[in-house]
């Protein structure tokens, strides 16, 4: 008991452990598993990432004006929902062109508000 007593007393004169987060941003480690990023030009539309993704956060959906890429035979467009993604990196491991077409950056996942309809459409 006296140890804790003493500890509390010395803590009083120590600099608190608290980091001033929003004021001073945290430097993310380069290996932090953050957002999945995609480069449309490099993609070969093999759809391996879509199949590997456990929650289905990556989807290739047919749209009216698909991005032009000669590999894109079915007229698909890449869609990625960061609110559904579990940041497991399976897609990157499945991709035949990791770091070119698809890679995991160390950017922080986003914060959404009501207007974003993160769960509504797509």
């Amino acid at each position, binding site marked *: *008991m006296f*140890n*804790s007593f003493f*500890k*509390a007393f010395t803590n009083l004169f120590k600099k608190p*452990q608290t980091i001033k987060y929003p004021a001073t941003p945290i430097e993310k*480690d380069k*290996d*932090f*598993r953050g957002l999945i990023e995609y480069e449309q030009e490099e993609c070969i539309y093999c759809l391996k990432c879509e199949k*590997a*993704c*456990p929650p289905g956060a990556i989807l290739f959906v047919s749209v009216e004006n698909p991005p032009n890429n000669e590999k894109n035979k079915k007229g698909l467009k890449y869609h990625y929902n960061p609110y559904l993604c*579990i*940041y*497991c*990196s*399976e897609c990157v*491991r499945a991709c035949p062109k990791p770091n070119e077409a698809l890679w995991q950056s160390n950017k922080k996942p986003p914060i959404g508000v009501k207007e974003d309809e993160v769960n509504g459409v797509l």
Partner: protein
Amino acid sequence: MKKTIDIPLGSQHISLLEPVRFKFECENEKIIGVDSDVGFVHRGIEHACTTKFKFDGIGYVVARICGLCAITHSLTYTAGIEKLLGGEITQKAKYLRILLLELDRIHSHMLCLSHTCENAGFEAMFMRIMGDREIIMEIQELLTGNRVQFDFISIGGVNRDLDASRAKEIIIKLEIVKQKVLGYIDVFTNNWSLSLKFQGVGALSLDEAYRFNAIGPLARASGLNIDVRNEIDYLPFFELGFVMQTHTDGDINARNLVRLNEILNSLEMCNNTLEGLPEGDIFTKLKGKPKGEVLVRLEAPRGELMYYIKGGGKSMLERVRIKTPTFSSIPAFSHIFVGENYADAPAILASFDPCLACTAK
């Protein structure tokens, strides 16, 4: 007036992280009966494992059964699949797996201890342990890129390598943690008010432990030698210095001490792993589809975790049965509560370190 009163605890309650409802039937403040409802988090993962996901993605799904021992879940599952596929993984991958397994145990035990303190009304200790726990979280982030859900293990090995400079950094951090843990042992054994709260409270005798098939720290605190690490040879635990920690009192205090000693043991194991880390690949590609049935067990922070996997040679499995630690401890829990004081209930509860997330799956 009615003789007994029913006190609900949960499903939302400040001393609980998870939704579970206990209804304590109390006479004055003494508990004479418990009723629990653990189904709040049932999500249907077993079903989804055989209908929604292919076998190679399930490792990431089952990790989400529980955030506290995510690694144990994915590791046990992966080990099962590896047995079915019949491949051998490299020694380095095994070492890294153990490293993460033990780190996870450390942080989980620390969380449990801090939570027990908080529920005993000792906020300063809660803050102290939580503050120190951040060191372990940092190590985990360094190793895996995420603080909680590691997604570190894939079928055939692990996903990330560890280089020597990082290993050194981690060893230094572990040494700091060790000093802090020694400090906690002092508090837990010598603080007068904690002993008033913990000693002799919520006791489970050895016979009862046998009778209710208690597992994990709960059983070890009562003197029952059960630790899956002692019963499997799939990972080289003994090589890395595993020693089973037991105690005989069976009360909250004993459980805390078992956890503290386990943290020390795990720190030791982590150290040995890092120092003896072999060279080599971290990943071996395993081919084929799982066929046959297998039963694997592993020691999660809270006790024995079991997976039963049955595959039919397709990419969809036929059956995945997950038996989680808290699930099989529930009969023992309910038994302990009877006869205790309601004021102790949150502390007793926290000392079991229940994780309902996995109980209901």
